[in-house]
């Protein structure tokens, strides 16, 4: 049978007797013990051996325990190792200072070997539980990110929708969302939204939005009515501090009409085959905040080959450069025009490469849809 790896404990104390007592009492219970006679040696062993727990004397010549723990907590290799102080000091301020520096507990000298064992056990259990919680949460977040990505439609699954997309979430659970809806054989809905916040709650909400869009973006409702219905439900289900800005582009390739509903979102860009590019700047309330929300609606007659760019604010907003949406979007119009030489599938990726250098990182999540009539 394979032998289990023993838990390791580093004891740091300038008194060899104390070290030996700890070594004897813990090693007979199956722990592997490293010992150090001073703070500097203790830190070196902590870096090399990465013990599961450290028992640290406070009063030592050279680096005292407070200096040692400070350095351990500043070091990425050792900062997660729980530290228990060994001390003859009963001053409460000294104890509080130790807790403040990151100690998990104190053992007062003279100590009983069984008390050391009991405290080592309890703090190892706590540490294991905390680490397992962290791993569990990371795994869940990864699942959420995977689920969120799986919810986003890719152009090859919707050839009739004729669109290209660039989507990048800054964190595992992004705040941006888009969807493409086949409303009928010749009507397609394109929805781009940006949630307030970038947390797990946001990611779960994207599933709700997707379901709401399917239910409400149908031939029965006008684009404005669809957004009103979505807003009414969101007002009921969203937590108080949550809302979203959104842009819903409804393209009827039979009547050759584009209807755009704006809910507090940056302006879309229209690039007609003939004529100058312009911004579709209708204003509207955000989604999920007001029961009587008003949405700006713009209707435009379109021609075959016309293009629209719909995007989230990460594309046009820069905190560092103090750029607002309209000014940012205006600057983009000539760039959108230059992208006419590329297919609409390629255009969003080319746009991002043009705007952001290879190593520069956008300040927010980004989604860009390029839609061709």
């Amino acid at each position: 049978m394979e032998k289990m790896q023993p838990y390791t404990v580093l004891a740091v104390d300038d008194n060899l007797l104390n070290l030996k007592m700890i070594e004897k009492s813990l090693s007979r219970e199956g722990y592997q013990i490293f010992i150090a006679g001073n703070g500097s040696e203790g830190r070196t062993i902590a870096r090399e051996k990465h013990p599961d727990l450290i028992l640290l004397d406070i009063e030592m010549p050279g680096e005292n325990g407070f200096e040692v723990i400070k350095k351990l907590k500043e070091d990425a290799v050792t900062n997660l190792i729980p530290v228990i102080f060994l001390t003859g000091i009963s001053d409460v301020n000294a104890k509080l200072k130790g807790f403040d520096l990151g100690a998990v507990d104190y053992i007062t000298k003279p100590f009983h070997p069984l008390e050391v064992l009991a405290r080592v056990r309890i703090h190892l259990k706590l540490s294991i539980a905390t680490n397992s919680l962290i791993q569990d949460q990371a795994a869940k977040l990864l699942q959420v990110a995977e689920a969120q990505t799986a919810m986003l439609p890719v152009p090859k699954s919707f050839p009739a929708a004729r669109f290209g997309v660039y989507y990048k979430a800054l964190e595992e659970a992004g705040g941006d969302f888009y969807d493409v809806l086949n409303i009928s054989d010749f009507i397609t809905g394109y929805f781009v939204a940006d949630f307030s916040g970038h947390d797990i709650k946001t990611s779960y909400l994207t599933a709700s939005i997707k379901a709401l869009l399917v239910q409400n973006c149908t031939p029965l409702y006008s684009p404005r009515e669809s957004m009103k219905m979505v807003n009414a439900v969101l007002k009921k289900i969203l937590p108080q501090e949550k809302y979203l800005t959104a842009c819903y582009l409804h393209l009827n390739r039979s009547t050759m009409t584009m209807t755009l509903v704006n809910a507090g979102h940056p302006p879309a860009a229209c690039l007609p085959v003939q004529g100058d590019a312009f911004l579709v700047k209708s204003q509207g309330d955000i989604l999920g905040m007001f029961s009587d929300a008003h949405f700006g609606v713009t209707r435009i007659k379109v021609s075959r080959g016309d293009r629209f760019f719909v995007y989230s604010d990460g594309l046009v907003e820069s905190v560092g450069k103090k750029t607002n949406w309209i000014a940012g979007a205006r600057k983009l119009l000539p760039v959108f025009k230059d992208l006419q030489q590329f297919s609409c599938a390629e255009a969003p990726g080319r746009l991002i490469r043009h705007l952001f250098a290879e190593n520069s990182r956008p300040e927010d999540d980004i989604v860009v849809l390029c839609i061709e009539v």
Partner: protein
Amino acid sequence: MDYKHLADQLDMDETEFSELVTLFVDTTRTDLEKVRQGVSCGDPRQASAAAHSIKGAAGNLGFTQMADLAQKMESAANSGSLEGFDAYITDLETRVDALTPT
């Protein structure tokens, strides 16, 4: 001194306890030498640190009288006084010499 009783108190057998006592004798002699140096140099901080070490080790093994003596030395040195330390040192040395594991 009843080593069996002290060993039982620490959940150890007598052999283990005797090993620790031997170690205690060595470390305490070294610490007492540091106390003596502190006294001769007029350095209460050195005397205090060494007395603190003796106090902890003696207390851990259950040698309460030695821990008390070391505590008195540490407190006096912390207040800047090294008066009467020769007597403390002699007293502790006598007690350490008497620790012969059976």
